[in-house]
């Protein structure tokens, strides 16, 4: 199933830990038998409202295939990841 994930990383991480988060998220997907199709990093963006007292965040968008059961594990792992302020998994209609 093709899905899309958008996640926002807290702005107070340095570059190396940002790539570490990126790799962590990638691993979450591949661990569940997923395959990343596309990755888009938006960089630092202003948030529309403060989240955990942060006014900015690093946005990333990922497109990937993942069996439906893997999505639950992915969402749980993202919930536990402290660097991730917000995330959203949506289904991509029409590949």
């Amino acid at each position, binding site marked *: 199933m093709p899905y899309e994930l*958008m996640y926002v990383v807290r702005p107070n991480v340095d570059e190396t830990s940002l790539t570490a988060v990126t790799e962590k998220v990638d691993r979450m997907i591949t661990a569940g038998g997923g395959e990343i199709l596309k990755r888009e990093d938006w960089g630092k963006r202003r948030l529309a*409202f403060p989240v955990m007292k942060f006014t900015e965040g690093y946005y990333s968008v990922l497109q990937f295939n993942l069996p439906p059961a893997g999505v639950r594990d992915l969402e749980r792992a993202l919930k536990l990841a402290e660097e991730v302020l917000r995330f959203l998994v949506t289904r991509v*209609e029409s590949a």
Partner: protein
Amino acid sequence: MEETRNSSASEGSGASRSPEGRGGPRTGGPARRGRFQGPRPPRVCPFCAQKAKSIDYKQADQLRRYLTEHAKIKARRKVGTCAKHQRMLAIAIKRARHVALLPFATENMRGD
């Protein structure tokens, strides 16, 4: 004084009421366009004009057009979207809000 005036008023309205009652056909007077008299929205839905099959939550700047100044979702009668696209638009806006791309309320409204 007041009593007599009241009784005569109710008598008068009772006599003039048509057999159909309140739901009877409207006679005379200018045709009214309901309660909302603002500028007419465009007749075609802006998303139908683009033949949009889906509305992307990532395009927050475009979605901003469909928020009021207090960041509420604009009504269909204001933007002229069709029912189908309004539903898709509402979902897209709510998704964008979840990831802080769009506000739930404007800055000065919070805590008000």
